[in-house]
């Protein structure tokens, strides 16, 4: 049985797709057979970040509607050979994702894969609900600002009430907080919420903190999951997050300002 992980947030533009790409790549790199599904029907992005947009023939909706088999639609990643991508349809409506259809696809994937990563669309509408419905674990991607935190709180409430686990009365979905676009300098200036603030409000375990970085943007533009930029702080932060997801204990990094040491030394010296 595969472990089903949803990457969700409520709010848009916080880094769900970036996170889905990196987490799935990270899991696959460690030898776990992983598939990442784009649930954002109509606003397909994952294929761009995974650099497989030119190889999309069939998509998730085609499979649900029986127009293609799963094997025809799955795209094998060129960099990591245990990683597969199931792209979203760009031309259909989100309603094309039916509960039964999604279940059928997930059950079939469960037979051969170790991890199924579901990249949720923003919002709390049908597409997002379908992405989280079958989840065993949830990575809640949050930016350190109040509206993102509020929306994450909302999505946590939905996970507790509308997921299959909640409806069946099973163990609740395991929740992880992933703080992205974290800028310790701006936190110090009081322009951003700190890790402690967000942890205190949301009260769920912290999976990782991804520092705000130009590398993330560059990697996305090149169609490279940022976790493969293993010299960058963002890449390493994602690698830590994957390790923690698999149960490893790793100390949190990139939470304090790098430059601060330099400046404070300057001021002390002067």
């Amino acid at each position, binding site marked *: 049985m595969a472990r089903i992980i949803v990457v969700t947030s409520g709010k848009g533009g916080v880094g769900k797709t970036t996170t889905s790409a990196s987490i799935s790549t990270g899991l696959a790199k460690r030898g776990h057979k992983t598939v990442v599904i784009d649930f954002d029907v109509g606003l397909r992005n994952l294929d761009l970040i995974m650099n497989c947009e030119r190889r999309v023939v069939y998509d998730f909706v085609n499979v649900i509607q029986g127009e293609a088999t799963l094997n025809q639609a799955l795209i094998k990643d060129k960099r990591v050979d245990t990683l597969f991508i199931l792209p979203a349809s760009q031309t259909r409506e989100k309603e094309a994702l039916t509960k039964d259809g999604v279940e059928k696809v997930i059950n079939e994937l469960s037979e051969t894969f170790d991890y199924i990563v579901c990249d949720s669309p923003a919002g709390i509408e049908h597409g997002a609900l379908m992405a989280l419905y079958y989840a065993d674990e949830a990575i809640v991607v949050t930016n350190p600002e109040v509206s993102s935190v509020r929306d994450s*709180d*909302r999505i*946590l409430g939905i996970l*507790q009430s509308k997921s299959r686990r909640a409806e069946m009365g099973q163990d609740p979905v395991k929740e992880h907080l992933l703080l992205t676009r974290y800028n310790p300098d701006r936190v110090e200036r009081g322009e951003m919420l700190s890790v402690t603030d967000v942890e205190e409000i949301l009260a769920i375990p912290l999976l990782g903190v991804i520092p705000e970085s130009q590398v993330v943007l560059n990697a996305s533009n090149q169609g490279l999951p940022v976790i493969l930029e293993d010299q960058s702080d963002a890449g390493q932060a994602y690698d830590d997050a994957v390790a923690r997801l698999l149960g490893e204990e790793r100390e949190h990094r990139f939470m304090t300002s790098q430059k601060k040491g330099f400046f404070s030394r300057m001021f002390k010296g002067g």
Partner: protein
Amino acid sequence: MSDTAASGLKQSFQLKSASVSLTALELYYFDNDEFEANLRDKISQAPGFFKDIPLVISLEKYEGLDSELDFFKMIGTCRRHNIHVIGVRAGNDDQRRLARGASLALFPGSSLREQAPARAQPDEATKSEAETSSPADVPTSEPAPAKIISQTVRSGQQVYAPEGDLIILAPVQAGAEVLAAGNIHVYGPLRGRALAGIHGAETARVFCQSLEAELVSIAGHYKISEDLQDNGWKSAVQIQLRDDLLVVTPLDKA
């Protein structure tokens, strides 16, 4: 007459004793326009909970003239707001005759109040206990059980205790709403909206470990976040109603 019972046929009904909880509207005086304005105001605070509720008009504190007591207007106004007046509690003989004329059921006066003189000045606490446990006139042998929630109440979620107290052993997040007929206890930060005494129990209170609420309401009297900042903000407090005003007191000095 019919001998259906004797002939072994099933009767069309059976009478059973039932005990239900009702909302009582304690009327001080009646002016239809003001009545409607006040009603609309109350409903706007928790629209969902007043829809299609049965209501008993309590006349124990009625101070107006009997001639002003137009039950037909009252019923009509309530009906427009989807509230069903089913009867009248207490009141003198004339008032009760008027009520009967409007096809309303007659309930006896509150047993609680009738007993009160027998007791030696019941103190504030026991009075509040008694009143919150029986929000309406229906005699209940046991207080309504409290609803206990141990999971965080997240933004967009609503928790409702229609009869008794609501006890939450976790944070109530911004954008969440908790409502109770009785008291509300939050053993964690209260960041959302808390409405206690929603059926009109003015002795209901709100207790929380850290007051960060968007809104606190007791029996329809409310304060919004802005008005709560100056007193007890982000600390452990209780909030109660005194002379129609919400009063915030730190818990350590209570």
